[in-house]
């Protein structure tokens, strides 16, 4: 057993933390809400190697393993950085697996923004329910459909899209992967800020020209692999956020006085904080479990992905609700530093599946594992 971090990862984490502390604040966050990304912050992240750490050497990076992802995102979470790094990991990872090395290179250099258009109205968290249609004529593909809540779509130069090349809406087979240029014809967007920071959009495609990437049969396995990696990123980010929220709440309990003494001296509140601390350590362990299995065979990988996402969904709810409660009124205000952390942590439950979704999947995967 060895739970220590490698020297390289420790160095990256330290420099990332210092940079964020120095550079990241309300202005950068406002920029991300307005445009999807603050160019100065994005350039700094690329410069530090944050984007490179998400990819393997063959892909042009210098990391790409589970612990690399966990290290980066835990630090990003601590300051609730609203830059689209998860999109870089997710859509960039898919492009890398499909041999699109030029785009990945640009991404790592900080010269590109990406997004994955997968969710549709009504498919909720189901990766293989795809109704956007892909049609081919004379070797050229065109896509028609509605993709919903596409995170980072407004800033993306290139959009990775899932669409159906064969079969029915719910079929696991017949899902294709495509890229669509941001200025492609027939592409329309309704952009908006996201509750956890950054920007998203409703994306409609109307006979929009697209390039097919990925395997000829079905893209489901690629999609599932990269969503598992994105879940790892999201869970690690959540742990970083929870650490920051716990520290803020503890500080507040030590300084806020009512009835002539610090409210942290009331045992009822002390016990709440003890419970919160326990759940955060559980969450940290769930992330370690997933980080250690994210490159394993799919059934094992996804069991850990669902376990982590399920546990962190529960822990996040507790941390969101109790941190606000223990702060009292001040915890409800937008201006105080807790607000954006709480909103971003809350949003974790609305992407890549909520706790119920993953509880159900965990049970199904377990039954599958025992039967096999």
């Amino acid at each position, binding site marked *: 057993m060895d739970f220590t971090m490698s020297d390289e990862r420790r160095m990256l984490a330290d420099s990332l933390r210092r940079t964020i502390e120095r550079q990241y604040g309300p202005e950068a966050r406002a920029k991300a809400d307005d445009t999807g990304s603050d160019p100065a912050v994005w350039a700094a992240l690329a410069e530090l190697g944050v984007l490179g750490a998400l990819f393997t050497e063959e892909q042009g990076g210098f990391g790409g393993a589970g612990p690399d992802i966990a290290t980066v995102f835990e630090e990003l979470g601590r300051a609730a950085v609203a830059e689209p790094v998860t999109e870089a990991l997710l859509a960039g990872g898919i492009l890398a697996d499909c041999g699109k090395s030029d785009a990945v290179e640009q991404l790592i250099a900080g010269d590109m923004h990406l997004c994955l258009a997968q*969710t549709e*109205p*009504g*498919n*909720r*968290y*189901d990766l293989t*329910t795809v109704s956007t249609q892909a049609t081919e004529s004379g070797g050229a593909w065109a896509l028609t459909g509605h993709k*919903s*809540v596409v*995170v980072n779509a407004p800033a993306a130069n290139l959009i990775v899209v899932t669409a159906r090349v064969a079969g029915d809406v*719910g079929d696991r087979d017949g899902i294709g992967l495509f890229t669509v240029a941001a200025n492609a014809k027939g592409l329309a967007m*309704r952009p*908006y*800020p*996201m*509750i*956890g920071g950054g920007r*998203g959009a*409703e994306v409609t495609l109307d006979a929009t020209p697209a390039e097919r990437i990925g395997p000829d049969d079905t893209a489901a396995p690629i999609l599932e692999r990269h969503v598992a990696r994105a879940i790892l990123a999201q869970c690690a980010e959540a742990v970083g956020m929870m650490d920051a929220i716990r520290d803020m709440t503890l500080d507040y309990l030590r300084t806020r*006085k*009512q*009835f*002539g003494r610090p409210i942290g001296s*009331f045992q*009822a*509140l002390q016990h709440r904080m003890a419970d919160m601390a326990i759940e955060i350590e559980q969450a940290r362990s769930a992330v370690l479990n997933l980080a250690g299995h994210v490159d394993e065979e799919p059934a094992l990988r996804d069991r850990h992905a669902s376990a982590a996402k399920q546990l962190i969904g529960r822990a996040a*709810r507790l941390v969101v*609700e109790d941190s*606000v*409660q223990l702060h*009292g*009124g001040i*915890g*409800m*205000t*937008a*201006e105080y530093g807790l*607000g954006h952390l*709480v*909103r971003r942590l*809350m*949003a974790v*439950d*609305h*992407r890549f599946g*909520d706790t*119920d*979704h993953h*509880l*159900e999947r965990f049970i199904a995967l377990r039954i599958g594992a025992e039967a096999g």
Partner: protein
Amino acid sequence: MDLSYTPEERAFRDEVRAFLRDRLPKRLSDKVRLGRHLSKDDYLEWHARLREKGWLAPNWPKAHGGAELSAVQRHILDEEVTAAHAPRVVPFGLNMLGPVLMKFGSSEQQAHYLPRILNDDDWWCQGYSEPGAGSDLASVRTTAVREGDEYVVNGQKTWTTLGQHADWIFCLVRTDPQAEKPQQGISFLLIDMNTPGIEVRPIVLIDGSTEVNEVFFSDVRVPVENLVGEENKGWTYAKYLLTHERTGIAGVGFASAGLANLKRIAATEMSGGRPLSENPFFAARMAQVEIDLMAMATTNLRVVAQAEAGQAPGPESSMLKIKGTQIRQEINFLTRRAVGPYAMPFASELLEEGTNHEPIGPEYAAAAAPQYLNNRKLSIYGGSNEIQRGIITKTLLNL
């Protein structure tokens, strides 16, 4: 024992329902159901409808123009009105100040202010909390110093709900800084918001709403006749206000309306090829909260029956406050979860009053996350749930 309403009570309920059918404008109930922000005029419009019917002040005695309804009738009215997604009645004048003036105000104050409250001539807000005085309300530091026929008020109030609309504020102010106990030096003062030296600044909450404010006082001159009761006895009046009129505290009507809304959403949202309401995991969560609500409705009626028999609600109202807010917050949580990925767009213009923006996803989605966030307040204000637990352990459990 009989759990059902008497024929008279049922007849009253039918009357309330008919009134709501005829007189609650759909424009208003749609806004409430969709979680949109209400304007001052929206509140006033609904007040006017209730006033016409004589139900704006159901708890006031007839002598003061109220409806003097029984506790059970009040409960029925409350429940039906909220379940129909009517705007809430703004409580500051009608439910808070009104009863205090009736009990402790001078006859001149009663004759002047009560009809104006009933008529919506004045919009009142509540100036209790301060940055340093939340749960420990008796530590208020805003001072009122007597100079001739006036008090000179200096200090700051905060979290003042809908203070941006207010013409008047009732305040707890410190008139005797030397008093032995902090509770002893407090007075209850009525202050015209148009007096020079008052500044109102909005506070933006985490859901993007601006319903609370900071109110600053610098050398604000208030005529002494605006003092309620005796100087330095304000704490007694404040406590009376806090314990009075607590039957609605459980929020059964709000919970029922919220649950009905949740069920509609869950029946519409699809999950794994079937409605979310048929997903066993989600169905179990909805059933759980419904079971809790059914029991709480009866707990609430037990307290209402006591009140009807003339007993003042004691620590029971603390129980209702805690359980009621837990249930409402759970419903808010489930509603947020039910809308799935559409909880993530954060387009506050969709919640603005009078919005005509195209919705993002289903129309009901826009308010789900903001309302979840906003209603975290339920367990913080009106005596936080921790404070209520303290009351239960001390006065009910004798620990």
